């Protein structure tokens, strides 16, 4: 029987299509991209070998530094916002809404499936000031605050970007963390209640430690997604005003296609990949330590 399950021909027939597609369209291009980092040029201009100059350029390029800073700022803000609000939502579902939470979960989850471009355009209209005043500015005016040009400065645009991406994904993290909270046995919480723990102390000392693994995987997932942000910012601000809301992904796109520097673009993409790997490793390591301590 064992021989039947290790029949080489069957394995090849079943595995080859997936492995071949994956290798040819993902692994090979990845290695190829690594090769590009030693060259300057583009498809149209042709390529010249430049050694390590792309790497030194990343360190001296003020725009690249700005893009890295923005990416980190964005990833940290959005991850904290998503996971924190998601966790509060999950607590709300489990301890307040209980059985009734199904409908609320469904409703708060749906922005997740909406196309990013559509959501970005929707938010650019929500925060608009001219030629017509959008709902957000109307609300500000109704409250007696001056309406703002939200896309006029980098810091204001960042607020809109953060609001949008947290709005879009908070329900997702709510459901993800809800699954972790529901797994906590009822009798554990019940006995903690009998011992006099309630409210904040119950959440801090019982619920949070027991759901910690899910929180960690939510953070890893979130930071991996947010470091790679492209669609939503490209469609909402296009990186502007100026260069102020340009993440690494967008800067890579610009250098590659607008300025025709494939080598430099690949170097930026590599920087991003390394950032993703490092962050995941660090979180994974530190969370392990926490659990054993």
């Amino acid at each position, binding site marked *: *029987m064992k021989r039947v*399950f*290790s029949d*080489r021909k*069957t*394995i090849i027939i*079943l*595995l080859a*299509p*997936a492995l071949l*597609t*994956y290798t*040819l*369209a*993902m*692994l090979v*291009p*990845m290695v190829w*991209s690594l090769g590009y980092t030693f060259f300057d040029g583009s*498809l149209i201009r042709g390529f010249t070998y430049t050694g390590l100059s792309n790497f030194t350029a990343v360190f001296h390029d003020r725009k690249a530094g700005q893009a890295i800073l923005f990416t980190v700022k964005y990833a940290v803000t959005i991850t904290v916002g998503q996971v924190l609000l998601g966790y509060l*939502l999950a607590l*709300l579902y489990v301890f*307040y809404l209980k059985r009734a939470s199904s409908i609320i979960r*469904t*409703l*708060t989850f*749906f922005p*997740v*499936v*909406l*196309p*990013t*471009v*559509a959501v970005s*355009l*929707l*938010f650019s*209209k929500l925060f608009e000031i001219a*030629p*017509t005043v*959008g*709902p957000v500015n*109307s609300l500000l005016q109704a409250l007696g605050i001056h309406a703002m040009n939200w896309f006029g400065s980098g810091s204001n645009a960042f607020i809109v970007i953060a609001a949008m991406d947290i*709005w879009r994904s908070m*329900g*997702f993290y709510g459901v*993800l963390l809800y699954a972790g909270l529901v797994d906590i046995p009822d009798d554990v919480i019940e006995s903690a209640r009998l011992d006099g723990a309630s409210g904040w102390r119950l959440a801090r000392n019982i619920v949070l430690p027991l759901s910690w693994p899910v929180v960690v*995987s939510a953070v*890893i997932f979130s930071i991996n997604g947010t470091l*790679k942000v*492209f669609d939503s910012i490209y*469609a909402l601000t296009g990186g502007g005003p100026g260069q102020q809301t340009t993440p690494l992904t967008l800067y*890579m796109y610009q250098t*590659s296609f607008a300025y025709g520097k*494939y080598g430099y*673009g690949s170097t930026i*993409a590599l920087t*991003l*990949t390394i950032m993703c*790997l490092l962050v995941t490793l660090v979180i994974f390591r530190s969370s392990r330590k926490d659990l054993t301590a």
Partner: protein
Amino acid sequence: MSTATTPTTSITLTAAESRRRSRPHAAWRGRVRRLPLALITIVLLVVEIYPLVWLLLGSLKTQSEFMNRPTWALPQNWANFANYATAWQAGISRNLLNSVIAVFPSLALIIVFGVAAGFALEVMVWKGRNTVLLLFLGGIMIPSQMILLPLFTVYFRIHLTGTMWPLVVTYTATGLPLTVFMMATYFRAIPRELFEAATIDGASLLRSFWSVAFPMMTNAIFTVGLVQFFFLWNDLLLAMTFTSGSGHNELATVQVGLLSFQGRFGSVQYGPTMAAICVNVLITLVLYLFLNQRVMKGMTAGAIKG
């Protein structure tokens, strides 16, 4: 005996009495304490849903309504679908067709390849299968930017730009890592005895994959397919790179089309832009309304891979 029981009963009586007396009070206090949470829930729902209601209402308004009436006013004519007609004629229909042509073949390939690979990696027994599974898993972390330029170069060199092939191939490849991984996880839950029985009954392994394993995975396939559908349908980066290069605007997918629609009409004609966004939103929204439990399950299952 009787003297001993009397105090106890009287105590329980007073306890019960006091509980009865305090109950309406406690219930009232409980309700007050719950009020902030109820308010939070309501605010949450308004924040999540009002933007879409506003979008829907906006798509029914005329240009002068946008200019002269407050932004939260209701549309004056509820059956004003002129904006949709404008948007449709401006190319939305073509974009929808392109998206269907790019997404569904990719989806079919992802599923067939993914289930087969999952079977080969989890049910079949051979040296190195864990390494290959890890190889697939690594693909989940790679940003698309890392594969964009070489693929663009290759597609250009073999004259595929200007067709839908680059998109189908790239979508299939990028969808595989997660699908293979999830399929392998699902196969792990199926006892191998099942396939052994099929083999004893005389089925070849390929046959038992196709007639036993594949039908058994219907549920998983549907869930994973749904998740991948949303990823591919909502993609902008790959679609923009592989379709809009060298002036092939007739290949634009829904998302690329919507973005250029905004560029052409957005700051001038509000109604049609809102209608175009609305069409885009409604497609995924309707799908979600029918299959929400499954979508939520699939999406979050894809996240816990860690």
